[in-house]
């Protein structure tokens, strides 16, 4: 078993019409033993960007703290909040700075990017543990259930979903994928990001 699977956990992000969603399970394990069922893996970066981190839990916490510091410094120096595309490259360069002794996490980020006309465009991206970015128009998956998530998301996702339809799609994708993975599950949390507000919902899942 790889060190990336030691604590378990999965994250998925999806793009909709003028909205994005990101969701994760809540399990923290130590190998096959479940330690906590309230371990959140998705963190707010700005009011329009959320970052999900899968992989080794110690690095999830370390990177959450590190990105909070880096984004705070950016906000102070630039007197503006960071855009998703900029933040994606911040994530990438932070991970690559540890190229030969990496943080064992695969990040997923979801946000709304401001367009020149003043509107918002869905922006989702993922990266591997050394910061190789992966931009997608549809969905990004990561974690111990990523193989299942790919399959279910491929089947359920469709373009231009509204916030409520996107919520249903991402919730069903996540719940049905983690039920087939022993290292993920034990509840889930979903964030729907729209230009007006962020909707947060916790889902009940199978506890076995």
């Amino acid at each position, binding site marked *: 078993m790889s060190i990336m699977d030691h604590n378990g956990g999965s994250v998925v992000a999806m793009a909709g019409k003028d909205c994005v969603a990101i969701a994760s399970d809540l399990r923290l394990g130590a190998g096959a033993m*479940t330690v906590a069922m309230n371990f959140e893996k998705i963190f707010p970066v700005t009011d329009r960007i959320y970052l999900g981190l899968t992989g*080794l839990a110690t690095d999830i916490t370390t990177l959450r703290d590190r990105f909070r510091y880096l984004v705070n410094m950016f906000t102070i120096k630039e007197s503006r909040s960071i855009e998703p595309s900029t933040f994606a490259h911040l994530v990438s360069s932070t991970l690559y700075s540890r190229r030969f002794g990496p943080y064992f996490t695969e990040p997923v980020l979801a946000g709304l990017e401001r367009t020149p006309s003043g509107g918002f465009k869905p922006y989702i991206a993922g990266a591997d543990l050394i910061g190789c970015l992966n931009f997608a128009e549809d969905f990004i998956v990561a974690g111990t259930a990523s193989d299942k998530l790919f399959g279910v998301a491929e089947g359920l996702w469709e373009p231009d979903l509204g916030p409520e339809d996107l919520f249903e799609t991402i919730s069903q994708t996540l719940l049905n994928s983690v039920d087939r993975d022993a290292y993920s599950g034990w509840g889930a949390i979903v964030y729907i990001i729209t230009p007006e507000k962020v909707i947060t919902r916790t889902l009940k899942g199978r506890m076995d």
Partner: protein
Amino acid sequence: MECSFALTGKDYVIIAADTTAARSIVKMKVDEDKIKTLSPHLLMAYSGESGDTIQFAEFIERNIRLYHIRNLYPLRPQSAASWIRRSLAESLRSRSPYTVNLLIGGFDTADESPHLYWVDYLGTMASVPFAAHGYGSYFALGLLDRYHNPDGSLEEGLDVLRRAINETAQRLVVAPGNYIVKVVDKDGTREIKL
């Protein structure tokens, strides 16, 4: 082998740790206290590699004390746990990492709430209602899952702890014989005879 358990209740945290100091298959000592009182309302049970445990626990103890002296008030449990976790996470990627697992229990006097953190040698930290380290965890966690009551009285909490310890004693081949039990609540920390 080393076992430690902890659980929260309505307004307290109980931490229990076995008292054996072993080297290979030999018990060197049977009355070792492996729960440190870090500040007036903060307890930390430590287990792991024998040299590392004491070295790390004393390092944490002195630094938490230093913070208290410098600022005239102690670190809150959340902040203390966060700092301790960071120390372990930084140690993990150093030349000689500390192999120490911790249970950190505290009572936050500011908002009168109990806090319990499960921390392992990798620097993984989880805020939990109950926790265990060592082989005992395989027997105790299921039991705690079934019988733990987050709003229970101290007596109820001690009953659940007794169940966990008894189950471990009954089923674990290398079960420890003795435990030290400590409680932290609004009145501070104290040792309890089970």
